[in-house]
């Protein structure tokens, strides 16, 4: 009972913090961040309590901790919403709570809390730094506090609320609510420095690109709801008879079964939210937001939500599929999109110089892994990679933010402006920022899948094994290639940033960041290593027998027996492959980039000239989308709809009718009213008047004349009567 209430309460503290900050405390930075972090802490504590309780519940998948209430009436029934904790939401809750709390703490330092106000900072732009008179009489430049500090914590709290809501909800509609509120938050936070042209464009791009997926998802919800009469997870995904029926009924759409069609529609939501090809273009631009936001979007919330949905609906997508048999259409689509995205964005990452952009493309690539894993039926591997990735990607983003912060310090100190995010301006930072270096190294190695000691190795290995053992060689090779590139560009990033000698004065004067920023790095680094131990594959030589695969045993129960019966084949090929690609890629990256001097071009540029430009330009996809979609939709809206159809066609027709009526009226007036009606009338009037005029002569005003006229009339009338009478008498 306490547990149930607690689950309901989990999302609320951040929401409350949001409203309190917006309505009351927005003028006080201290109160605002205290509220936000306090709320995050409360939710975190609650989440840990729930997590601890949940992992001790036997058969949690079949008997989730759940409670629901009526939300709105639909005819004679009610639509019910509620909360539910099952194994999947338990593990999601774990990484969400930790990463959000760490990101919140980190933000205090990142936004320069405690620093003076900037000399000419204004809301909507990043702080430019303040000038202080030092003790020695010299002026020196220091970072200045973010002008919209309180607002940042308000928006982030709303973001956290939405993610908690999404994780604890027991049905797809409340999931969708959290999902969309996160869309709003990402819009607000990517466009946090809204006065920057690039930031406002990136914000709109993020919202609209994900909305493409969202409208399909909404259709999927409507489809599912109208077919099954519910959107509750347990009633749909935990009901084999229903799934069976959905899988065997044709939908009439592209030859898919109902389950396949709904699955595909819902999956399109994931494609948008988790930045899968071809809707991935928004994520790299999302770097326009402050770095903690990037960490929020890339690890704790947004993109993880997309994969979370895909994992959620897996029973629906895979309904009727038996491991070992060919994939159904929807699964094939997932496998192909995931694998392609993984490789495709890994290649782009190789060509990026911005430290955050490299990470952005690596996120897309890793999300591709998870989707591909689901596509080939490696359910727990996908969920496992989601968790480990959240930790090491949050770590990497916060680490990169720390690097940028250190670089900015150097820039302010030297007064020479260089791009603080360009890795070619860095170098040698390992000595200046040791804590950042070591934690970033751990995160980088986890991302590359460095064997045994990193979490990324275990989860990635499981995915490769899943693809190989299932016999999906194309997927396996694509993912292996992507893993090679991942290790390569990660080492490129580490080498360029931390190794060698400083390439600019700014890097020379970079400084380690404060504890609010480094503490979260250390905590996340801890999980980037240890999270992997929860899921060591039982078929792993040696270790596999010693350490139980807790993750598989816990999350794997989400699926019915038949689906978890993994393929019997346990080959060592995937293990060797992952060792070779991880170590090979790392070595290659180190070898190529280890000691690059200032101003040196990227060595790759010399080798693959044209291809490198293609990578640098991200395969010109942004330009292609502008040409194919953005431009035409502007034309359709501005010119076709608003101008031609509405103004020219419809209004033209209306004006034509009006003109016709006017012409008809004028014609009637000129050719009928005026000559005939008026003519007749006028003539009549004229006649009467003329008659009157001619009578006028007798009105002289003289009584004698009137008497004479009277006598004359009398005589005339008398004579007339006389004749008439006599005539009648005869």
């Amino acid at each position, binding site marked *: 009972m306490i547990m149930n209430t607690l689950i309901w309460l989990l999302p609320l503290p951040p929401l409350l913090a949001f409203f309190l900050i917006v309505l009351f405390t927005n003028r006080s930075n201290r109160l605002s961040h205290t509220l936000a972090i306090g709320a995050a802490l409360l939710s975190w504590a609650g989440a840990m309590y729930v997590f601890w309780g949940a992992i001790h519940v036997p058969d949690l998948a079949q008997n989730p901790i759940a409670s629901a209430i009526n939300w*709105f009436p639909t*005819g004679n029934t009610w639509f019910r919403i509620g909360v539910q904790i099952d194994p999947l939401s338990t593990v999601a809750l774990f990484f969400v709570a930790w990463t959000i709390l760490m990101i919140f703490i980190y933000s205090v330092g990142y936004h320069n809390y405690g620093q003076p106000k900037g000399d000419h900072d204004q809301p909507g732009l990043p702080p430019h730094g303040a000038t202080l008179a030092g003790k020695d009489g010299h002026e020196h430049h220091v970072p200045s506090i973010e002008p919209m500090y309180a607002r940042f914590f308000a928006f982030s709290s709303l973001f956290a609320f939405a993610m908690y809501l999404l994780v604890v909800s027991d049905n797809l509609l409340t999931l969708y609510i959290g999902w969309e509120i996160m869309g*709003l938050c990402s819009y607000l936070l990517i466009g946090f420095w809204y006065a920057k042209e690039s930031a*406002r464009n990136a914000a709109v791009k993020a919202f609209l690109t994900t909305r493409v997926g969202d409208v399909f998802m*909404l259709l999927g919800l409507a*489809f599912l709801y*109208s077919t099954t009469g519910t959107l509750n997870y347990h009633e749909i995904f935990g009901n084999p008879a229903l799934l069976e029926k959905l899988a065997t009924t044709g939908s009439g759409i592209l030859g898919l079964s109902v389950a396949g069609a709904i699955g595909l529609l819902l999956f399109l939501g994931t494609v948008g939210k988790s930045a899968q090809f071809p809707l991935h273009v928004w994520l790299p631009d999302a770097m326009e937001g402050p770095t903690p936001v990037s960490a929020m979007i890339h690890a704790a919330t947004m993109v993880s939500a997309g994969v979370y949905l895909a994992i959620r609906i897996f029973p629906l997508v895979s309904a009727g599929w038996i491991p070992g048999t060919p994939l159904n259409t929807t699964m094939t689509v997932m496998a192909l999109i995931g694998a392609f995205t993984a490789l495709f964005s890994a290649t782009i990452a190789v060509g990026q110089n911005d430290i955050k952009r490299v990470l952005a493309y690596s996120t897309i690539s890793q999300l591709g892994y998870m989707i591909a894993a689901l596509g080939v039926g490696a359910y727990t591997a996908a969920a496992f990679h989601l968790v480990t990735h959240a930790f090491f990607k949050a770590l990497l983003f916060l680490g990169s933010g720390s690097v940028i912060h250190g670089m900015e310090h150097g820039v302010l100190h030297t007064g020479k402006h260089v791009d603080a995010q360009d890795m070619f301006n860095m170098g040698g930072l390992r000595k200046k920022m040791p804590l950042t270096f070591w934690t970033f190294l751990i995160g980088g190695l986890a991302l590359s899948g460095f064997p045994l000691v990193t979490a990324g190795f275990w989860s990635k290995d499981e995915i490769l094994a899943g693809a190989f053992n299932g016999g999906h060689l194309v997927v396996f090779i694509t993912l292996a290639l992507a893993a090679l590139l991942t290790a390569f560009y990660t080492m490129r990033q580490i080498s360029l940033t931390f190794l060698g000698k400083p390439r600019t004065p700014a890097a020379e004067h970079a400084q380690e960041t404060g504890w609010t920023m480094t503490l979260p790095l250390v905590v996340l680094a801890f999980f980037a290593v240890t999270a992997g131990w929860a899921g060591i594959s039982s078929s792993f030589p040696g270790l596999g027998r010693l350490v139980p695969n807790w993750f598989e045993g816990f999350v794997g129960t989400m699926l019915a027996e038949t689906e978890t019966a993994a393929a019997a084949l346990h080959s060592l090929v995937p293990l060797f492959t992952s060792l070779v690609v991880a170590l090979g890629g790392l070595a290659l990256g180190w070898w190529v980039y280890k000691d690059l001097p200032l101003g040196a071009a990227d060595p790759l540029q010399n080798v693959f000239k044209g291809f490198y430009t293609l990578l640098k330009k991200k395969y010109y996809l942004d330009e292609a989308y502008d040409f194919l979609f953005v431009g035409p939709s502007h034309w359709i*809206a501005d010119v076709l709809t608003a101008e031609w159809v*509405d103004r020219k066609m419809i209004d033209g027709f209306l004006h034509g009718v009006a003109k016709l009526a006017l012409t008809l009226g004028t014609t009637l007036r000129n050719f009928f009213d005026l000559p005939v009606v008026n003519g007749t009338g006028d003539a009549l009037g004229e006649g009467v008047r003329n008659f009157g005029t001619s009578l006028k002569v007798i009105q002289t005003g003289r009584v004698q004349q009137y008497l004479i006229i009277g006598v004359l009339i009398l005589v005339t009338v008398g004579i007339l009567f006389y004749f008439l009478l006599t005539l009648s008498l005869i």
Partner: protein
Amino acid sequence: MEFLFSHLLTLILFLPTLFALVLLVLPPKEVKLIRWTALIASLIPLGLSLLLWFRFNPALTGFQFQEQITWYDAIHSMYHLGIDGISLTMVILTTLLTPLAILASFNIQDRVKAYMILFLLLETGMLGVFVTLDLLLFFVFWEVGLIPMYFLINQWGGANRGYASLKFILYTMAGSLGLLLAIQMIGVLAGTYDMQVLFKVWPGIQQGMLFGLPVGTVKAVAFWAFVIAFAIKVPVWPFHTWLPDAHTEAPTAGSMLLAGVLLKLGGYGFLRLVLPLFPLESKMFAGTLALLATLAIILGALGAYGQNDFKRLVAYSSINHMGFVVLAIAAAAWAAGTDNAVIAMNGAVLQMFNHGLSAAGMFFLVGVIYDRTHTRDLNAYGGLFALTPIYGGILLFTAMASLGLPGLNGFVSEFLVVRGAWPVFTLATALSMIGLFFTGAYVLKALKKVLHGPLNERWVGHLPEIKPREMAVIAPLMVLILSIGIWPSWILTVINHAVSMWF
């Protein structure tokens, strides 16, 4: 007290007119007195309709608070009032938005007395349509609502007000002609204008000849006469082009009521008259209606996206949002008697209410910024968030409600509509998603150009923050928007009972 409770509807309906007469005798120079009298005059009906809301029993079938007096005996027309859950929702919307519109008009300086009188008369006209149960009376109020709005646009409107007001009144009148003829025909044939009787009798008349034509044909003609009248009002594509002009040129408060309530008269006409009176014809032509609704959704959104005039953009958004109402009506007409119809109808009525809140809010916020900058050109703003953070936050909130963000009101109704319409008109529903996508595009376009981007230095020092009076106008709307988004059942329970009864 007894009198109050037994004549609640009449009081709500005619108190505004009564106060309009009071205003008539006030000295025109006493601007303050006139404003406050008008505001109080509109607050009393609000209070009474809240009383109505709490005394209303959603579980009962049929109409409640009925009043019936002989009015025009020679042609069997009666003064007959009564409400069910659908009309109650609309009454609340009207009595809520009118005081807000009047409060929003406190900055009007020109001929305040006439202006306020027109608003109060307008309220009576709109309310009359929602509460009457007599077909002829329905028409009378339908027309009564038209005239004050014409003068409001024509006398207090923007630069192009002559054109806009004429287009507005001629267009609506053109629709009314057919409506009047059809109503007359029904009245003559059935011998009564009483809706409750007509709902039972009229759909049953199927056999025989009328005016030398088969009954089916005559009824189809009458059906289309009704549909066109209401379609113009909603407006359904392609009868929509009066709307951007009228809404853009009307004074701020006029736009609030035009979008907030007057459009709902059309939707209400469909729900109250077209579907119950012409179930067969509705089903026959539901496909056409769904097609037009989809076009309204898509082209309305595209049209909004194509505007560079802030107010015109918001005006076009109404076409887009009301399209969902019509889509739901079409779905309910086709699938009458099923769960889908009930869900779609729930969505339709709630969408009308929701759009009333968010559109009125949006028009008001456009007015707030127009008062300060005297321009509606989106390209003339830029980066205003930095100057007016509170206004910016409020605009963001209201715009998100208009966008249909989950957690706010618009989402609930749109979801219900999509859910109800999907199994019935799958293709139309799928296509309407294009419109939903562009809803996002135009809302973000407006926010991007007004609030975001480099600060336009021109407005520094000339853009005071939103005032307390203006906050008082928008705050109730925001509270309702949020409350429906979070807990829709307080209003959906009332709507659901009513639509379950009808469809």
